[in-house]
């Protein structure tokens, strides 16, 4: 376990029942996903010190911030945290610059203004630095909140549903910015959200929470490739999220080749550059299984793999099949009837067919 990382263990019965244990190493992004009321914000607040659980232990970089057994509770203002609230929580009577300056008290007086300027440049708000929050747009306010959180030189960055109040376009841009920032920093980042899109874009690790308990936890690809998908509910469909690299683009044909660990995927070219890192989500519903490779079809993606697991759902009409394509696992959602007809079982060789247009490709880095 990395010394500089975040380690949390919490349990309580009230006001929100919780019983979790999690870790996040520097440079990792832990997404905590779950429905409202599942306790995810409580976890974040406990890490920050805004809430003290009945029993728990929180250490960051070797420092113990909370240890109920030993009776040690470090107050909020003594923890080096960067907290971005859902409602931004900016100080209304201060300008953007003023807001950031508040968090720079730990730095020598002469260096504060300069550092505040740097941070505002980082989030591209230099020209509005003298505006008050009421004169800023939602996206700008959140960026001020980010700059202010970073100003603290935090040991851990905590984001509480940071994009919840925004429309899609603004959210996309901010997600990219957060992604850029986290690559620059070398601290654990924990983001709490009920929007899976945030997870797909930003998280390296995923913890799924329901009713205060961990349903699944681990690296993003591993968790999303698990066949027991009941935890996702109706809001998110099953589908593995994998990291890939753009190998080549065929501009004339409007296609891009994405290489992942175990194979290649072809997706429509969306102004991707060769060598760019991307995330690809393969919706399980869009994956067709074939016992033999088809001929003369429109599909670009035909992946050969071995069936690793078959998991029927509760009613038994639909099954999720986990297919191992090299070391990467892909999920396919098909009917039980199809499973029986094709005789799909563990160890069989199958072909996973995915329409290129069904792939969700997310480019990281500023757009």
């Amino acid at each position, binding site marked *: 376990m990395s010394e500089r990382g975040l380690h949390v263990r919490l349990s309580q019965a009230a006001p929100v029942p919780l019983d979790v244990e999690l870790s996040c190493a520097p440079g990792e992004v832990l997404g905590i996903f779950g429905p409202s009321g599942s306790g995810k914000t409580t976890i974040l607040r406990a890490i920050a010190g*805004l809430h003290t659980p009945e029993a728990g232990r929180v250490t960051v970089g070797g420092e113990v911030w909370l240890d109920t057994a030993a009776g040690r509770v470090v107050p909020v*203002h003594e923890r080096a945290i960067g*907290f971005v609230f859902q*409602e931004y*929580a900016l100080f*209304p009577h201060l300008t953007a610059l003023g807001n950031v300056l*508040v968090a720079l*008290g730990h730095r020598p007086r002469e260096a504060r203004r300069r550092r505040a300027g740097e941070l505002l440049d980082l989030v591209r708000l230099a020209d509005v630095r003298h505006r008050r929050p009421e004169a800023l747009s939602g996206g700008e306010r959140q960026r001020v909140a980010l700059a202010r*959180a970073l100003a603290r030189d935090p040991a851990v960055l905590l984001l509480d549903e940071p994009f919840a109040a925004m429309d899609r376009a603004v959210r996309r841009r901010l997600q990219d910015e957060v992604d850029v920032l986290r690559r620059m920093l070398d601290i654990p980042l924990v983001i709490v959200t009920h929007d899976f899109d945030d997870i797909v874009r930003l998280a390296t690790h995923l913890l799924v929470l329901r009713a205060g308990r961990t349903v699944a936890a681990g690296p993003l690809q591993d968790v999303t490739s698990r066949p027991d998908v009941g935890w996702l509910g109706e809001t998110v469909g099953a589908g593995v999220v994998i990291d890939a690299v753009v190998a080549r683009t065929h501009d004339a044909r409007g296609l891009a080749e994405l290489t992942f660990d175990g194979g290649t995927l072809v997706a429509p070219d969306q102004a991707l550059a060769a060598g760019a890192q991307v995330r690809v989500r393969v919706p399980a519903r869009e994956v067709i299984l074939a016992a033999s490779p088809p001929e003369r079809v429109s599909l670009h993606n035909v992946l050969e793999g071995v069936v690793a697991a078959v998991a029927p759902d509760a009613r038994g009409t639909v099954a999720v099949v986990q297919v191992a394509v090299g070391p990467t696992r892909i999920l396919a959602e098909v009917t039980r009837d199809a499973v029986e007809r094709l005789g799909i079982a563990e160890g069989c060789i199958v072909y996973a067919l995915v329409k290129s247009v069904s792939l969700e490709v997310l480019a990281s880095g500023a757009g």
Partner: protein
Amino acid sequence: MDWQAFGVSLALGLGTLVVLLPFALWAGHRLAARSFRGKHAVEAVIAVPLVLPPTVLGFYLLTAFSVRSPLGAAFETLAGNALAFSFPGLLLASAVANVPFAVQPIQRSFEAVPVHVREAAACCGLTPWRRFLRIELPLAWPGVLTAAILTFAHTLGEFGVVLMVGGNIPGETRTLSIAIYDRMQAFDDRSAGLMAATLLVLAIGALATTTMLARRAGPVRE
């Protein structure tokens, strides 16, 4: 126009402010900050002078100030005078009677500071004292000003408590409101009318100012 009484009234108003505001800032802030067991009881006790007849307050204060009580005896030893019928005694009585006028507006304005803003301030590394000075107080100042104006205006208008605890000692406890009463009993309606009009104008001015402030403060926008 009894200028001496006017001076006593002003001194009483300002003195009450000086004594009461620090306490009200502390109490209003604490009551706004958190819920604790017995909070409602505390709020009720603070509000008591609002509903109590001045005679009840006067009665208990006189008992507390009498030379037979520890407080009265101590003052007597230190100052050589009785606590009742003296300006310090009146100041103390006025402070007690004005507690709700000072505490309640301040408590409301601290409550209006969004909880997330306070938490964000803590997350920025501000100690509770610095949070109070740099974030909460600047956001709550209209309520503090309202409390100050209301307390001052209410003190100017006090009668029952002043009469019972202060008597009518010229230059010491004869406030403007008492002077009006005094002049009426001497059939000097002209004087009484002039002083009454003065107090009326001051009261209207104070209320107009607080209304304007309340509108200006409004909900805290982010």
